[in-house]
């Protein structure tokens, strides 16, 4: 079974977000980039599935050379080979188009993504790839089992869970609880240095959407403190001042 895992390099979750160039660019100064946490779960699950069923895990990332440490980490965790598409994606549709072109000629039983990236929060690549590549889709999955030529997955739905069966090839997007992420060991880190990482150029241009500018949320006006002895007053204030409850 061959699995493709789509990875995104994102700012560490503790990053304080700021912008430069008149709020048109994310300020990467001093920012530590990590594998998108949901993608890391997708990678781990893909490794578990290939360990049980045979086959290889390929990781693919759309990004410039600065994302290579993140790709090497994925190889150290256990991916067999990696592809980098040498461009900065404008949005999810662009990223998916780049990924599709980069793997044309290959065939995968499963394409795994995270349920969204924690930087642009699109949650688009899973559905777009399934449509472009005519594969079935189960998004936001918390468990996956392979059964011959189909999979059974549990996915989050609004206010509950749904168990779904899907034919392979299939696109899945990982949600928290799918598995525990793996920490690379020294052997893995050494091996990662010599695993194949191919760089491909994107084909064509893209202009359906583009990011024009950014802004930070307006700061709060300041907290109004309530005496804990009269804590019940909070309920009154929410009613009188905020017209809530």
């Amino acid at each position, binding site marked *: 079974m061959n699995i493709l895992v789509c990875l995104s390099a994102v700012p560490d*979750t503790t990053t304080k977000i700021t912008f430069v160039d008149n709020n048109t660019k994310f300020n990467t100064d001093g920012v530590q980039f990590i594998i998108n946490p949901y993608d890391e779960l997708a990678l781990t699950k893909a490794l578990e599935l290939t360990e049980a069923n045979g086959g290889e895990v390929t990781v693919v990332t759309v990004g410039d050379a600065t994302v290579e440490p993140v790709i090497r980490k994925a190889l150290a965790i256990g991916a067999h080979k990696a592809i980098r598409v040498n461009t900065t994606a404008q949005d999810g549709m662009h990223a998916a188009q780049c990924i599709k072109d980069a793997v044309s000629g290959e065939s995968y039983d499963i394409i795994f993504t995270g349920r969204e990236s924690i930087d642009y929060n699109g949650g688009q690549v899973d*559905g777009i790839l399934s449509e*472009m590549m005519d594969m079935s889709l189960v998004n936001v999955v918390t468990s996956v089992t392979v059964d011959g030529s189909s999979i059974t997955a549990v996915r989050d739905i*609004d206010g509950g869970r749904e168990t779904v069966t899907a034919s392979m090839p299939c696109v899945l997007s990982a949600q928290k609880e799918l598995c525990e992420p793996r920490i690379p060991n020294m052997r893995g880190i050494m091996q990662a240095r010599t695993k194949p990482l191919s760089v491909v150029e994107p084909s064509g241009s893209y202009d359906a*959407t583009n990011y024009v500018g*950014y802004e930070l949320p307006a700061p709060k006006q300041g*907290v109004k403190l309530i005496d804990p002895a009269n804590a019940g007053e909070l309920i009154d204030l*929410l009613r009188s001042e*905020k017209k809530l409850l």
Partner: protein
Amino acid sequence: MILVFVEIEGGSIKKSSQEALTYGADLATATGDTCSAIAIGDASAVGNLGQYGASSTFAVSGGGLDTFTPEGYSYAINEVANTNGANTVIISGSYTGKSIAPKLAVKLGAGLTTGVVAMASTDGGFNVRKTCFSNKAFSNVAVNSEKKVISIVPNSYEVKSFDNQAAVSTVSIDASGVIKTKSVSVDKVQGKIPLTEAELVVSAGRGLKGPENWGMIEELADVLGAATACSKPVSDMDWRPHSEHVGQTGITIKPNLYIAAGISGAIQHLAGVSGSKVICVINTDPEAPFFKAADYGIVGDAFDVIPKLIARAKELKAS
């Protein structure tokens, strides 16, 4: 035409779909267009969607559309959009909507923008405001394509009431040929408000010391008619189910009121809740970073404060 996909559940239109419909109606007014709703499957329950802004409704049913699948539903919406010349499709960012929007955008050849939180600006172009960096920031995205799929974050656009009468046209579409997935079972949490749609949320963290102490959190939520949530450490320790975890790697919520007890307010937690309109923080530590993001704060012990809130809320409810 602007086409809005609406989800009908238990005989009524979901709140997130009402928001999407108001958005579509307002966008239609701004651009001199018309706004129509599309409901799939349980067409009998559609009723008059004119009250939420639709000028007409397509009630679609047919092979492969009895239960939800992303491939079946996106196929049906694409058919209706093409037949009726809809260039813009609005979909709520519910889990259902999230699985349809990307597939539909590919079928339509549309530009796709998800996470949208405000009305598009349509003077000289088409720009939308969306969340990014998990609610730590917003971005302004130009949608340059002629066709557009816009996915709206639940609780970010206020529902208005309209006087329209939306005539329902029934449409029969056979999607059975495209179905690739099959729903085996659905397990809904009974009697609870889904966190992503909740207008009021009561949340607690490690300060509660153990899962056995959640009774008072559930009681407060119950009295207020709120959903319950928790911080990451709490779900990591399995004190609460992961579906309650709000934060950067959990669920992002935008309720009208967020009450947090025993949560210090780490940057990852704030990312998930900073869209809340009013934030109340209860913490024993006056230096807890969460107080900086709060509207109201109580420096005190949750075990002392929460029962007082319950008592006062009950008093007011009874009066």
